[in-house]
């Protein structure tokens, strides 16, 4: 069971309090009705599914109920950081060597 830091509660809480909500930073188009088939497929179906650093969404569903973003290594399952929804994708990760 993972231990996840909720950036709103500012606390580490057990995974049971959270629900994963898939890849982060995939914005819904403001003109979605006018999107091409390709763009819609990319938005709704295509996922980066990285082996390594993933940017993903979690919701503290049995806590503050807020959605937030996390950076996690999918090989070790270790969290690099979490941050609030709406904040930009971090340019530099803490502890990243490159």
């Amino acid at each position, binding site marked *: 069971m993972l*231990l996840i830091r909720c950036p709103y509660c500012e606390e580490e809480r057990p995974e049971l309090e959270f*629900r994963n909500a898939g890849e982060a930073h995939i914005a819904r188009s403001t003109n979605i009705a006018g999107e091409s088939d390709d763009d819609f497929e990319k938005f709704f179906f295509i996922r980066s599914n990285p082996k390594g650093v993933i940017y993903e969404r979690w919701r503290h569903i049995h806590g503050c109920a807020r959605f937030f973003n996390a950076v996690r290594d999918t090989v070790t399952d270790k969290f690099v950081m979490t941050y609030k929804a709406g904040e930009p994708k971090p340019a530099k990760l803490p502890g990243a060597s490159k």
Partner: protein
Amino acid sequence: MNAAFRIPGAGRLRQATASFSFDDKSYVGIDGDTLASALLANGVHLVGRSFKYHRPRGFLSAGAEEPNALVQIVRDDARKTPNVRATVQELYDGLTAHSQNRWPSLAFDVGAVNDIASPLFSAGFYYKTFMWPKSAWKNLYEPKIRAAAGLGVSPDRPDPDHYAARYAHCEVLVLGGGAAGIAAALAAAETGVRVILADEQAEFGGSLRFESGAKIEGEDGFAWAQGAIAKLKAMDNVHVLPRTTAFGYYAQNFVGLVERVSDHLKSPGRELARERLWQVRARRVVLATGAIERHMVFADNDRPGIMLASAARTYLNHYGVAVGRNVGVYTANDSAYAAAIDLKKAGVNVAAIVDLRDNPTGPVIDEARALGIEINFGRAVIRAGGKLRVSSMTVQPKNGGGERTIPVDAILMSAGWTPSVHLFSQSRGKVAFNEETRRFVPGTYAQDCVSVGACNGTDGLAATIDEAYAAGAKAAKDAGGRAGKSAKPKVDASESWSRGMLGAAPGAGPDTTVKAFVDFQNDVTAKDIRQAVHEGMHSIEHVKRFTTNGMATDQGKTSNMHGLAIAAETLGKPIPQVGLTTFRAPYTPVTFGSIVGHARGALFDPTRRTAIHPWAAAQGAVFEDVGQWKRAWYFPKAGEDMHAAVDRECVTVRKVAGLFDASTLGKIEVVGPDAAKFMELLYTNPWEKLEPGRCRYGIMLREDGFIYDDGVVGRLAPDRFHVTTTTGGAPRVMHHMEDYLQTEFPHLNVWLTSITEQWAVIAVQGPKSRDIIAPLVEGIDMSDEALPHMSVREGKICGVPTRLFRMSFTGERGFEVNVPADYGEAVWEALWAEGQKHGTCAYGTETMHVLRAEKGYIIVGQDTDGTVTPNDAGLDWAVGKKKTDFVGIRGMARADLVAKGRKQLVGLKTKDPKVVLEEGAQIVDDPKQAIPMKMIGHVTSSYWSENCGRSIALALVAGGRDRMGQTLYVPMPNGTIEVEVTGMVFVDEKGEHLNG
């Protein structure tokens, strides 16, 4: 009465006796014995049969690594536990045990014929035969193999015992309570942080149980350990857990442990759980899991009476039991000498020590020699004699030469010690092979843990305590502890050994065909491993799977390293290149019960009941499960079956009125200045222009354009919507809404609140519904003009606040009375009393389903299945044509979702009105075609409609709306049913009843 092999004055047990039985024979043991020590005290070595060859087996060990001595413990008919390691099971008065996997008896087992035929049963033989004729695998071979396999017998009754669970947090979790673990715990505890110390044994001390040469703080090592534990127990910040096995090391220092609470008690009270699962999150973990001795791999090394040297020492020094009267010792390292010395001093004859090494030196060797024990260097035991008990060992110079057979009644062996890196490896740490000592030790760490003592490859008690004390102090400091005063225990005398050998001993080498066992339980021999390699199994994982080495209930604790060494030798590769198999949880087998804990029966999953549930139950309602809810299904009167009850309820609602508990419907309040904007985006319908006080049926899609949920939405005020969802959909709709609100449309000023549990909902439906409700309502004009169909008002009913919806899921004039849940039952009873004046009924979900189907109202999840668009369901009218955005607008425009020939919802009438179609039945347009048939749709809803005097059905049919009037066919196993495609409304097509 002293058992024959109990040595007076030896061991640490008090003399309180406990009687027990094994295979229906009675014995006497001593309080504190394990079943193994008690049997050995009575001279019983033969306790089991092996898996494949049914070879007679005795005790290999005195601990959790035991592969052979598995028994069935029977407390009563419902408490039969298979595959219990006798070396771990503590004795209690009256304990009843049986041997396993033998027939008709342990001493005479017919299955042992497999041993004679064993040349045929080589590694993986079953992959190469049993293939002809084809049907014989299922009908002949497999049943025979299955019957022969398996060890014990599964319980056959529900378990009356209960299992407890605890979550805990601590700064330092110490796993293993030998000298290392105790030292680490002492150091950590001094700093004031929370410490948990767990050990699998009943008593702490680990190898101090048998190390007669250990002296700490001037005391015998084991005595020191008891004193240290007493001190730790007295500290408020320390929790000491005996009989507790850490079985799994999960992500982020989350460790699963099982505490055996009452399996050692004669008659545990009902208040005691059998076991308790601890799930501990620790800042730091100290692994002090020790090491496990390996056996020597030589011919017939599995005969009862042949055991690990440390086990014999444990039985002697702790339990006061001699494992034989005339023992032989076979070793490749020093530690077995200590066993020989202890036994000799206790008066047991040591026939000879056979040492593979050429000219080892050291104090234990000198001491053994001084005691007059015969020592043979550079020699190997090439064979053991005896069947049900070892009777001799045959010795030969290791490079060949004359054989000599020495009579013995036990052989104590030691090939060296394997560090227990299981938990370290589970923590995803990487082990490293130490070439000098030929063992895998912790290498790269993946979590905040540290290994100390024997599991870290640290030899010697003094070094172990130095290392463990320092590690405990550091772990505590890193986890936030204050500096403690150092009180490192002082080691006065210590035993130390290392090295040894891996793989097959001389006499069991590649040129032999002897049965030299590597994995005892699974009957894997050295030659099996070699054969696997010869057959192309070059990965250690392939070797393991092909031979089953290390896959028995001991999970390779004694066999993995030998197997690896033999495979490496055969491959001609160094051991680290061949690699180690993965260590997986659990460390030792864990009962399902301990994992499940309280989550059994009613507590398996929460049961949700509405406020009106007790009333319905009192009326004799039959309930159905819908998600976690119990919903009243129908209300049978005396003598009625389900059909009769539903027919009556259906007719009564349309003729008079009925009351229905709709409380389970999901309810969400959408509030805020941008509430309407938000609703526009989440639903296909337009909302901006919906007037306050009016309702609308809303459809929610997923982004892919398929129907996700539906429900009636009331606008209470310009900035306030009362949304209803399906019963099962409530949580995911809320999640879906929150997701969009928080992450896609955060600019909208809206607040969402789940109010499902806050409002009880009583549907009153039927021509008399207004007459029933009106007398109880205050402040709401109930006239059709003031409260038309699809409107909502707030007011009072029976003096409590209500949100009164005028809406209908039956097609009749109808209302849904929302009241605070606490008043739900009272208001229901008041409405019921009013209703009785008119002859109304209560109806359940089945009647609700029939009535809505008569009107062609869909149920999302029944008439739709996640592949249905609004157009497919005939709900295009509910999609705002002028809208430029809502969730699903793009998805439903995809090519296949607007293609011709999609399945569409239609009505079906059977040609024979008495025939009721089966839900899920498939529809074809040509009943004469051969199988596989081209199916064009299926029946989604089907009922007998007493109101129509015939059956009715809804179906998804390809191009359905263009097939009106067509005859289609429903082929059933007992004949084909003809149906006609119709509209979806079977009652009151014009909708006049809504105001009727």
